[in-house]
């Protein structure tokens, strides 16, 4: 998105030059004063903004006025799964992609692949509105204190179940019990499935060995033996629960409760404590960015109360800003996440990482995970 800048040369008189310089000096002094107060101005941008990410994360409704006011032409392209992003950004077709979204666990592998373009905290002042955990996490902030991503929402993988069909499952492991035969759906999200399965089994995810991956496979095969189907998406998972085809899922999302309620069906969720896995998504500038100003302005906008409330109310995922959490009024939305005890929660359940792309010793790779998932499906 190159912008055409029309420059016209205009010569100045000495008096005009001095007057202009005084204005610049005053402006500089004022900017210095503002800077010293620690409140950098909100970034502004205009022009075409190329977005690549999950459908819904382009916040069409929440950003409508902002786009009009700033003459932003948002061009959205949606991904089917996370790995679509590096595939597109790193291909010749990726030229001009400005904004992407990423799941925290990809921070290192995508960073190593050169997917991101970094920015400073001053360029996105609203980063300061987030819980300190999000401001300081290595998944978004690099050792030199620059950022490669601006987290904007989080959720926990839950087990959705039909309260009118079964009792609430007490653990993920319980879903391998024969009483769930034909009542379970697994979602086609191999990364999340293996993260949760490994956590249930107490296996470290980023240093997993081949023998441990075999244990994870056995657990997933036991789940598959009870599963009626493997749902290709969370939307399809919701359909299966609402239609009563299945009574529980591995793994689910709290939003499915709300979608069920909208259809008059009692879909409820429980958080099995034998495998709590948290998902955090962030916006980032792609290495192919060519509208940096608008991208920074977007990330800043995403951390305002207005948009964060939209995240909570419309996407049904959690806000990253404590002040926004206080503004949530809908009790059904508020009860989805325990904002009041966020720090204790995140401390109790640390984030899990994917294995590296290239292995050392007996360690498995991310490719081994995907192969294991293919084997589970083919079995």
């Amino acid at each position, binding site marked *: 998105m190159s912008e055409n800048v029309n420059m016209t040369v205009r010569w100045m008189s000495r008096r005009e030059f001095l007057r202009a310089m005084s204005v610049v000096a005053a402006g500089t002094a004022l900017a210095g004063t503002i800077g010293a107060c620690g409140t950098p101005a909100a970034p502004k941008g205009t022009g075409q903004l190329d977005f690549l990410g999950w459908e819904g994360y382009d916040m069409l409704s929440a950003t409508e006025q902002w786009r009009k006011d700033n003459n932003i032409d948002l061009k959205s392209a949606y991904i*089917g*799964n996370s*790995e*679509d992003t*590096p*595939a597109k950004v*790193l*291909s010749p077709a990726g030229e001009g992609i400005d904004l992407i979204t990423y799941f925290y666990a990809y921070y290192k592998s995508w960073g190593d*692949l050169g997917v991101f373009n970094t920015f400073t905290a001053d360029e996105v002042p609203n980063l300061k509105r987030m819980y300190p955990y999000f401001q300081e996490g290595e998944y978004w902030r690099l050792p030199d204190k620059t950022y490669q991503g601006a987290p904007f929402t989080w959720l926990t993988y839950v087990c959705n179940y039909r309260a009118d069909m079964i009792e609430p499952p007490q653990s993920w492991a319980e879903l391998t019990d024969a009483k769930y035969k*034909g009542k379970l759906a697994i979602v*086609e999200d*191999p990364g999340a499935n293996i993260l949760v399965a490994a956590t249930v089994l107490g296996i470290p995810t980023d240093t997993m060995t081949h023998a441990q991956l075999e244990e994870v496979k056995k657990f997933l095969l036991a789940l*598959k033996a009870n*599963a*009626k*189907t*493997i749902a*290709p998406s969370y939307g*399809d998972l919701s359909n299966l629960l609402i*239609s*009563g*085809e299945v009574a529980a899922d591995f793994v689910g999302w709290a939003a499915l409760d709300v979608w069920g309620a909208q259809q008059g069906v009692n879909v409820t969720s429980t958080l099995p404590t034998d495998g709590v896995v948290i998902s955090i998504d962030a916006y980032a500038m792609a290495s192919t960015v060519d509208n940096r100003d608008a991208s920074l302005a977007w990330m800043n906008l995403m951390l305002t109360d207005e948009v964060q409330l939209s995240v909570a109310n419309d996407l049904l995922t959690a806000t990253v800003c404590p002040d926004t959490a206080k503004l949530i009024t809908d009790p059904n939305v508020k009860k989805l996440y325990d904002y009041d005890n966020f720090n204790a929660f995140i401390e109790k359940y640390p984030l899990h990482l994917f294995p590296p*792309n290239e292995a050392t010793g007996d360690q498995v790779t*991310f*490719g081994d995970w*995907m*192969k294991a998932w*293919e*084997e589970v*499906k*083919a*079995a």
Partner: protein
Amino acid sequence: MRRTAAGYLLAAPLTLLVAALLVLPIGTFLVYSFLTPGQYRVGLPLTLENYRLAFFDPTYAKLMLNSVRIGLVTAAVSTVMGYILAYYASFQAGKVKMAVLALTVISILGGYLVRIYAWRIVLGTEGVLNSALGALGLTSNPLQFLLFSRSAVVLALVNIYIPFTALTVFAALENVGRDVIEAARDLGAGPLRAFARVVLPLTGRAVFTGFLFVFLLTAADYVTPQLIGGTSGAMIGVVVYDQFVRLGNWALGAALSFYIVIVFAAVLATSWLALRAFGVLRRGA
């Protein structure tokens, strides 16, 4: 000489188009399949490792077997049922021939995914079929095997692809001279013998074309099996997607693509020989 040059000139744009749209991408894939994979990149040295993995990994073999099985059953059922429909339209329908053809074409217009989801509504636990069986007192509990099984996949795919085989065969049946059939009958052949020895061989090419078309589309399909195939719905097409997108292993993805092409070509060659052996395809066809 001048006419030959003019012919080449006329063919040149189309040749260039085919080269750009077909030969170039397939050629690129072929080169990729022999290169050493990196993540979202390929490089030297040349290797056969990608083909070794594609052809000898048991997981890919299982998925290929599932794909070929679903493709063959769907293609065979679609061809037989499409033939019956086409035969009725061509020989029996009389004044309603155009109406039968119009209905066949209209059925193609319904969206692919819409029809898959429609089958979910029909075959589901609380679907139309189970509700009807329950209301008639034929079942006390919903039949769970109707949906999320290989048979559900075949049923939905047959429903989608029957029009394609029916229309292909119909065009061939319309070209079968009625006098030829009458000559066979005059020479003492019964209706079945006249069909088997005259009509079927004369429409053999269309039968094979319809079969080929349906087999290629269904064996490579991985959307329908995912939506209604249950836990047995995994097909080979999805691993190509996984290698290209999820893992960025372009070299193995390309080798798997050629693995699919080679196995599918072998299956079709065997089918062609079988149709020849059964007299459906004549020598020289």
